[in-house]
């Protein structure tokens, strides 16, 4: 008997759901094995994890807080990937969105709240787009690899962010009290810059939806409409599939590359604005940098197969995992567990991709003649 892996002749639709689900189950089993080996009870650990992520008091609310930035950076990665552009720079673009949004909020402190929030969203988008324009221009006009440039610019953005708060007396830094001079931190944003949130479910665990998450859902809808309904989306599709065909069709490829990079950066930048307005209420370098939202967003986008709606859904799942990780950190809960799980989920999701395109078949051998299957396996 031999095992043969062969290409599927067609890909049935149910595979699109079955394979990702199977990969999550596989990841849970693998993590369970890790827990067993290290002497933990996997059932107990999973129970607590699930509880902390989705069921417990305020769990879902906290999960959305973690999910919101992931949704933005995930959508940013997905937007660029549609054109086979790999924007690894959502991290830095998010910082710049946060910097621009914070400056806007501080400068326009007297504006009415609704206008101020709108201005922050715009400023965040502009900041992210501006930062993304650098690798965009380099890619479009000098054919520089955008993966490297966007990645490297993340470090530059982080240094700028730190400089603004820790190493300078910048506009963003709080210098009002002697204390603040010793322990540097950002200026508090005006009250009008606090993004509202809506309590949807008040009983039981409760659910409060932050404005930022709502904006992320809107961005997802907008992105979907842009890519499936407009000329711009059509051009991006052609360009993603065959740059030569795009040029042949008279599509201005350089402009499109730059536009898509800026779009991607703008989405990440709005994520930065949401961090300012929804959660942190000041420009907070440490808080922005500790979670690695930009990189996690790439994972989210990959798991969501670059579909905007799936990206939002996956961001909630991974957000839940992160949230549970924070909540459960302690002596009795293995601290690396969440990281291990995230890694295994990505690993098995990518591994199971193979099953969408290939089929594993066991072939029984009789003598020399290889067996020819009498019938095609049904699909």
């Amino acid at each position, binding site marked *: 008997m031999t095992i043969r892996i*062969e*290409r*599927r*002749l*067609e890909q049935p639709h149910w595979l699109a759901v079955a394979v990702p689900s199977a990969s999550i189950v596989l990841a849970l089993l693998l993590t369970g094995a890790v827990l067993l080996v290290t002497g933990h009870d996997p059932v107990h650990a999973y129970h607590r994890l699930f509880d902390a992520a989705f069921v417990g008091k305020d769990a879902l609310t906290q999960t959305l807080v973690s999910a919101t930035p992931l949704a933005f950076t995930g959508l940013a990665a997905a937007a660029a990937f549609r054109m086979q552009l790999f924007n690894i720079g959502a991290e830095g673009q998010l910082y710049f969105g946060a910097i621009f949004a914070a400056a806007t909020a501080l400068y326009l402190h007297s504006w009415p709240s609704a206008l101020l929030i709108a201005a922050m969203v715009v400023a965040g988008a502009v900041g992210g787009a501006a930062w993304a324009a650098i690798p965009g221009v380099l890619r479009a006009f000098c054919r520089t690899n955008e993966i490297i440039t966007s990645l490297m610019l993340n470090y530059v953005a982080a240094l700028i962010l730190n400089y603004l708060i820790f190493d300078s007396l910048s506009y963003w830094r709080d210098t009002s009290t002697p204390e603040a001079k010793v322990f540097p931190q950002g200026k508090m944003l005006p009250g009008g810059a606090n993004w509202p949130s809506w309590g949807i479910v008040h009983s039981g665990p409760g659910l409060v939806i932050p404005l930022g998450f709502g904006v992320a859902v809107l961005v997802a809808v907008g992105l979907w409409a842009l890519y499936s*309904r*407009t*000329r*711009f*989306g*059509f051009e991006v*599709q*052609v360009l993603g*599939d*065959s740059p*030569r*065909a*795009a*040029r*042949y*069709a*008279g*599509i*201005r490829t350089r402009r499109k590359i730059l536009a898509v990079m800026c779009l991607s950066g703008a989405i990440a930048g709005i994520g930065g604005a949401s961090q300012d307005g929804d959660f942190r209420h000041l420009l907070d370098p440490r808080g922005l940098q500790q979670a690695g939202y930009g990189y996690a967003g790439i994972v989210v986008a990959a798991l969501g197969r670059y579909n905007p709606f799936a990206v939002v859904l996956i961001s909630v799942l991974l957000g839940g995992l992160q949230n549970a990780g924070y909540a459960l950190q302690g002596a009795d809960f293995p601290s690396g567990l969440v990281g291990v799980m995230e890694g295994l989920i990505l690993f098995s999701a990518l591994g199971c991709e193979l099953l969408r395109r290939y089929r594993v078949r066991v072939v029984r051998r009789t003598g*020399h*003649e*290889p067996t*020819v299957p009498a019938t095609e396996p049904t699909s």
Partner: protein
Amino acid sequence: MPEHASTPPAVRLRGITKRFPGVVANDGVDFEAAAGEVHALLGENGAGKTTLSNVMTGLYRPDGGSIELYGRPVEFRSPRDALDAGVSMVHQHFRLVGAFTVAENVVLGDHRGEARTFRLRPRRIERRVAELGEQYGLAVNPRAKIWQLSLGEQQRVEILKALYRESRVLILDEPTAVLTPQEAETLFVTLRSMADDGRTIVFISHKLNEVKAVAERVTVLRGGRSVATAPTTDATPQSLAELMVGRELAAIRPERVEVPVEDETLLEVEDLWADGDRGETALRGVSLRIRAGEILAVAGVAGNGQRELAETITGLRPATRGLISVRGKRLRGGDPRRAIRAGIAHVPEDRLGTGVAPSLDVASNAALKSYRGQGPFLRRRLIRRRADELIRTFDVRGATHATPARQLSGGNLQKVVLGREFSAKPTVLVAASPTRGLDVAAMASVHGYLREAAAEGMAILLISEDLDEILALAHRVVVLYEGELAGEVDPHGATVNEIGLLMAGGSRA
């Protein structure tokens, strides 16, 4: 000369089946070739010739069937197994390393004796390559770098590779596509002498007269099945073509039909210069003038500036010097969109990568140049309706508007491209190798569309390597050699030989 009843054939394939997503490329193919024989494998594009040869050389593993070499069953798990068993192949696109010398390429991938040692001893390899070259009439300098060689010379290197490895079975996939008629003659002599040494040559082609000229027997593939094997002495081009297509054909050679030419000049190219992909000067002062209703053919061996000429006129490649004007209006170069607006349609040489976006559906590809309607939104319904219309009028088979373009066969894909280009009602059509790789039936319909377009007053620049096609369609023929126009011939009086001489760089006597 072969055929001893007792000796088993050199190659025997039985019931080879190979499936790909959406197609069965080989469906129970039987094939046999004897030692010392040149055996042609004939079939339309998409008949499964290339798939079959990839199975023979271990690139694909068949889903069913068996392979025997000299009576012994073999199973190739990789191309290396096939090479070890003495089966080599010369692919349509050469597998050579441009920066290496001839000798280095010959020894590359060889893993017996000499080549196995850590240290390369180039002198000995070079001597052996020179010897083999002399013996079989494959003149090429062993120390030359591949990039310095013409396509014909590169092909010789590929054959030398097989000889150096002492392959007993050599498969050549459409070897004459890149050769002048004269070079093809030389190749045939080489192949004959290799067969006389007891080797087996499998010659893949869809050109009937070549098959008659070089092979002893021919196996015809149609739709993934082997339909017949016959000695070439018994076959006529007519009978072979019928086997290939599966029905009777009126005439194989496209017939000449005169289309009247008007006086108005639609496309004018003056002193056009352009660089190739590697920065070399590919076009050197080409001047052309095409009138309404005229088909001007550019003949030449591939790689003499044809692609650059087509790309420069259609705006894909900037000109370094010179003028292009359409209806007397000067066109700013290097911008495909301006060229499209000026009324220049383009059937590119590379259908699948340039002519269409392969993963997108037929509807999107049919709209590739016309999707810009009013406003920012796509008019999906209109796009689909137009695609359905195109499928109907151009008789695209086996596809709906939702079929991904890459699943179409070469002929149907070309119909989509032509349909799209014609639907814009262009002034000028630049058609680069519009029938390359197409079967006889599809070729005939493409020729029909080109003639029709000319009759409607379009100016057509036909770039082709197929001289029969050129002689049948063109009002005037120019020959491109090393980026320059080597001369103009009158298709009414010209012979293939005469054009061939110009293509090879010789001037007319």
